[in-house]
């Protein structure tokens, strides 16, 4: 009886503690971001939005969005136009974008365990590029304008 009630009280405290420590409302930015008119992105360009932490890539096959957060330890990667790759400043991971035969976002070298994820992208009714940063999609799903 004594031990049983103690166990119930301990379990209740654990549940209460876990629920209390998990915020129910987050004042974080919305995962869906409006990235503007497709015409503003030149062909064969990679554009990093630092605030949204995504790359908007405009290739010959169409538009797509890559998560710019490195899959290693979460640093913000950057586009290196002279090398034609995406690179992480923290631990040197490198990712491909335009190389033929490779999937954009694929790792070239470095400690990153996974490629940069593709994010869901669509055109809004007003014809603007929308990206849902919380939804990863299978690669090679381009948005054609």
């Amino acid at each position: 009886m004594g031990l049983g009630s103690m166990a119930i009280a301990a379990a209740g405290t654990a549940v209460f503690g876990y629920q209390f420590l998990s915020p129910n409302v987050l004042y974080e930015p919305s995962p869906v971001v409006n990235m503007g008119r497709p015409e503003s992105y030149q062909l064969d360009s990679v554009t990093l939005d630092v605030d949204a932490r995504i790359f908007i890539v405009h290739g010959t096959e169409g538009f797509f969005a890559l998560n710019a957060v490195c899959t290693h330890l979460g640093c913000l990667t950057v586009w290196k136009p002279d090398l034609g790759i995406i690179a992480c400043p923290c631990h040197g991971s490198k990712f491909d974008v335009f190389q033929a035969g490779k999937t954009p976002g694929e790792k070239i070298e470095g400690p990153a365990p996974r490629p940069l994820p593709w994010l869901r992208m669509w055109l809004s009714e007003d014809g603007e590029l929308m990206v849902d940063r919380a939804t990863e999609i299978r690669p090679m799903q381009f948005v054609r304008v």
Partner: protein
Amino acid sequence: MSTRFRKYFDELRETRVWRSMFRGGAGASTLRKSMAIQQNVFLHLLSTKVRKRMLEFNATWYLGTLTLGTFAILVITGILLMLYYHPSVPQAYADTKDLQFVVSSGQFLRNLHRWAAHAMVFLVFAHMFRVFYRGAYRPPREFNWVIGVVLLLVTLLLSYTGYLLPWDQLAFWAITVGSNIASAVPLMGDKVRFLMLGGHFVNANALLRFYVLHCMILPLAAFFLIAIHFWRIRKDGGLYAHQSEPDVVMTTAPARPSL
């Protein structure tokens, strides 16, 4: 001069007010001296008697005491820094800059806090190496070694949580990387990271949580563990002296009197 001072002090110790606070009266007898230690809530954690040579530098290199000293500096400077620091996203970085360039002695206090933190980590490691290579972790002191390891973890967590508080780029990315390491824990990693940061990013909730951990929870944990750590020294037979434990250190050697 010193004898006259001693006389005044002895008289003071016989007054009713003094005796109401400290039950042990004046006198140089071993009993009186022991009682002065034993009947004091802080000093009673320590041994009433210590070998004189154990108080020399060579016995311990004073590494534990120096660690306590840096902890005391960190508590005092930390409390003073808290008077000018707001753990909020719009203000944290500005307050840090204010502490450096606007507050009188702010830069001194902040630097002292930072250097003492580095020194404490160094001293904790030095203390542990010394205890390890001298064999002072062995029975009957094995549990105090375990408490010491927990204190090492608390020290490192204090350093880690304090790193975020200046809210600059270095802090932000260090905690981003550090919390992503936590999410590598199998099965519950992402949940651990979520609870640690109070969200999906290093943001206002993370700053507040790290502030509470750094200024309240971890120092209190350190305080109680340090108290137990000191009390265990007494309970485990005083400071470790190499020759004082022939049966443990040299099992094959003939018993010899402890020095």
